[in-house]
């Protein structure tokens, strides 16, 4: 598939995934739409083009692994995993329901493709460091990808993990910051300012790049860079928009962190998410 076709496919797929995410959360009556919609382009591009695993090898010890450290964004991951056949799409409406494998935050062993329990923020990168060390010990060439939120990296453990990844020169580790600029209590810059994330990471010994996290060409380029760059762990800071694709969410970033859409809002959102109309 040539690049233009790849991008067109990603755009159409992600629009459908956005619909899945909002339907799931609306049905659940709770969840985190903003951070799921900001992350979905990054996650789908990873699974469709770069992550060396799949539904048939979800337990292969030599697989690449993806750790969603910002666990509240898991509706995006569930939508992507279902799309790629890790489990039946019929499960999606059970999100957050009693007895469902689709827990409100990721839980290992519930459905194939979930690699770590996360949701207590700031822990995923440490786990990813351990997985990357394990892959190196086994010499299997596997890569570990870890997505964090920008608010999440206020947790000190993230910077401990960055130190350790740098010490062990884990060039099989890629961290992605879904920088959607908002957290529960307000904008990240007001709650606890972080910029420049790349400068901080570079001072910790990481290689970094910054991209538009909704531009599929940028994402593909960044992932290709991350796979090739050697000698140090890699960080991709992706500028994203909380609630991307839904105008009433994009205009109220903070509000839509952890509030579920109701049926009326869902209809309004779905009207804007037409899979026949391709995005960027």
């Amino acid at each position, binding site marked *: 598939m040539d690049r233009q076709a790849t991008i067109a496919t990603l755009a159409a797929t992600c629009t459908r995934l956005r619909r899945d995410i909002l339907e799931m959360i609306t049905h659940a009556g709770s969840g985190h739409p903003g951070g799921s919609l900001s992350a979905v382009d990054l996650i789908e591009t990873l699974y469709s083009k770069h992550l060396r695993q799949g539904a048939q090898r979800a337990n292969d*010890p030599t697989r690449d*692994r993806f750790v969603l450290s910002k666990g509240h964004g898991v509706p995006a991951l569930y939508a992507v995993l279902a799309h790629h056949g890790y489990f039946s799409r019929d499960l999606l409406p059970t999100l957050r329901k009693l007895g469902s494998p689709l827990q409100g935050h990721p*839980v*290992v*062993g519930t459905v194939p493709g979930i*690699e*770590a*329990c*996360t*949701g*207590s923020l700031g*822990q995923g*990168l*440490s*786990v*990813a*460091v*351990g*997985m*990357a*060390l*394990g*892959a190196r*010990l*086994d010499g299997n060439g596997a890569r*570990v990808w870890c997505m964090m939120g920008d608010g999440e990296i206020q947790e*000190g*453990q993230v910077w*401990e*993990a960055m*130190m*350790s990844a740098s*010490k*062990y020169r884990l060039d099989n580790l890629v961290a992605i910051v879904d920088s959607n600029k908002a957290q529960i209590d307000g904008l990240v810059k007001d709650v606890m300012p972080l910029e420049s994330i790349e400068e901080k990471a570079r001072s910790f010994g990481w290689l970094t790049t910054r991209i538009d996290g909704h531009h599929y060409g940028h994402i593909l380029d960044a992932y290709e860079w991350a796979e090739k760059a050697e000698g140090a762990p890699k960080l991709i800071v992706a500028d994203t928009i909380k609630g991307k694709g839904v105008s009433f969410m994009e205009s109220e970033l903070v509000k839509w962190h952890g509030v579920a859409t109701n049926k009326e809002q869902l209809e309004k959102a779905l009207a804007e998410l037409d899979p026949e109309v391709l995005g960027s």
Partner: protein
Amino acid sequence: MSEQKPKASRQAFGEALAELGAKHTDLVVLDADLAKSTKSELFAKKFPERFFEMGIAEQNMVGVAAGLGLAGKNAFCCSFACFVAGRFETIKISVAYSGGNVKIVGTHAGVGIGPDGYSQMGLEDLALMRTLPTMEVYQPADELETRQIVEYLATHRGAGYLRLTRQDLTPVHGPAYKFVPGKLDVLAEGKDVAILATGGPTFHAVDARKKLAAVGIDAAVINVPSIKPFDRDGIATWATKVPLFVSVEDHNVLGGMGGAVAEVLAEVAGARARLHRHGIPDVFGESGEPEDLYRKFKLDADGIVAVVREQLGR
């Protein structure tokens, strides 16, 4: 009684781990700038490629151990009990909830660490660790038991907590001893009282039994190496055989081994035994020599004798 000399369980742990490393190639060990103290350095020297020095950053160490466990390794993650168990939230989510194959090793447990004082004393780690589903919790009483528990943990798939001492422990087991997870270890039978001891004070409880015999009190001494899984049936059985249990531990009396005994006793029908929980009585520790602290908190033989006599009124 074996011919072995007193040895700290941390030392026995380090030696056992270094020996097991050759046979168990999935073993990896992490430490947080305390490898010389926890004795994980013995493994590090033999298997440097499988040892990870993580610096003074325990929560990351715990998380990295979880990742190694999820990647198929059996990760031993070592520090003082207070520091490593203190990273509870990371242990809870990244290790226990994730089903990670991680063994949290907390050395220098209890007031037995001595002069460093309360900030370095793990006195609540048992209470924390035993509330985590899937987490197994063990505390050996001497070198032989330590070696057997470490060997068990080197093959066990899942999460575990191992609580060890800084101070030397006098052996309480003969060479034929066989550790069984989830079982009480009866060191001596008796009918007047059962002293249930775990970890550092256990050999003192053995000495206390002799001193109690001299004043006509027939005490059973039961070592409790397995805090979780816990031998509910064993406790229930003994509760029909003696009128009094005295639990003895170098840990806060709240939530530790004595707490586990209390939970079982409250649920046992027809139990005859009343329980007295003896340990650190919900106060902070302090600086001092380990033997002085054991004397102060009545965890030495004379102290245990005094507590038992007081409880029996004899």
